């Protein structure tokens, strides 16, 4: 179970916001004093990103819905323990990630941790001297824009991403599709930032290979 005591993150000033709304810190303080409307504003502000995290981890909209309910309720109940040493959003991600992991374990779909799993991921091929093999350097990037709306390409992407190992897929989706920071992903998934970067890079390399195969086959 991940530690919810927010000691590993640097404090970050969360105010003032450019949109004139109160910052998270102010809303948290108000919610800690029993202001339900302030908590509602925190929910409104963070629910979309939390939904993406829950969806990416569980792979199911129904599970994501339950994770979201559980995570926000849990956060409300633990609010008196939040001391503001970390960003509220990071604290919230961690609670939601724990909830998603527990749900997956109950369904026996998750490993005990997101630690290293043996795997073979596709990647570029190099010569013995470390130079790229010609097959790894076909330039399909110019055709990518033309094919952007193609249903076939969409299906190929979905399959390639689905074929990634769970923990690599989750990191890739959270970072490259949903735009979370490496730090937030590491915090939520109980990984180090270098581990996040490594999985992300390997996932991108594997997906690049698969897309290369798609475009080569579509010539």
């Amino acid at each position, binding site marked *: 179970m991940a530690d919810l005591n927010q000691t590993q993150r640097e404090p970050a000033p969360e105010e003032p916001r450019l949109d004139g709304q109160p910052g998270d810190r102010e809303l948290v303080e108000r919610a800690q004093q029993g202001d339900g409307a302030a908590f509602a504003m925190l929910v409104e502000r963070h629910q979309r990103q939390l939904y993406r995290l829950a969806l990416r981890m569980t792979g199911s909209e129904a599970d994501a819905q339950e994770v979201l309910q559980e995570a926000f309720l849990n956060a*409300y109940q633990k609010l008196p323990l939040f001391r503001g040493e970390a960003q509220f959003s990071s604290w919230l991600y961690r609670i939601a990630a724990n909830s998603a992991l527990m749900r997956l374990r109950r369904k026996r779909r998750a490993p005990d941790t997101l630690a290293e799993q043996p795997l073979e991921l596709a990647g570029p091929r190099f010569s013995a001297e470390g130079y790229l093999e010609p097959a790894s350097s076909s330039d399909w*990037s110019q055709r990518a824009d033309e094919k952007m709306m193609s249903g076939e390409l969409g299906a190929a992407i979905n399959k390639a991403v689905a074929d990634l190992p769970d923990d690599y897929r989750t990191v890739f989706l959270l970072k490259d599709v949903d735009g979370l920071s490496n730090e937030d992903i590491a915090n939520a998934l109980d990984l180090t930032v270098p581990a996040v970067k490594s999985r992300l890079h390997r996932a991108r390399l594997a997906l690049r290979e698969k897309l290369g195969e798609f475009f080569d086959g579509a010539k």
Partner: protein
Amino acid sequence: MTTQIHHCKECVDLLGEYIEGTLSPERAKALEDHLSTCPPCITFVRTYRATRKLCRHALATEMPKELMTSLTSFLGKHVPGFPCTKSETAAPSLATTADSGPKKV
């Protein structure tokens, strides 16, 4: 210690940090020097970037409105003072205030 990059493999290993701008200036310069003399690596960078762009386009998702409604309803039952509808919220919805300009609460 030399920062020169001799082989494509080293270049590929650094690409993730390079495109995120987190590589040290010395390593970024060494990588760019390698790219200036290595067409296969230039192609590799292009397709690496295109991979991210295509996946983002194909897989981006939004939280369904019905789910927002059911979450609000759920929390309204369990959190004292939690407004069950947006009109009950003390502060206006962030989505609407973003359009109508800053508003102090």
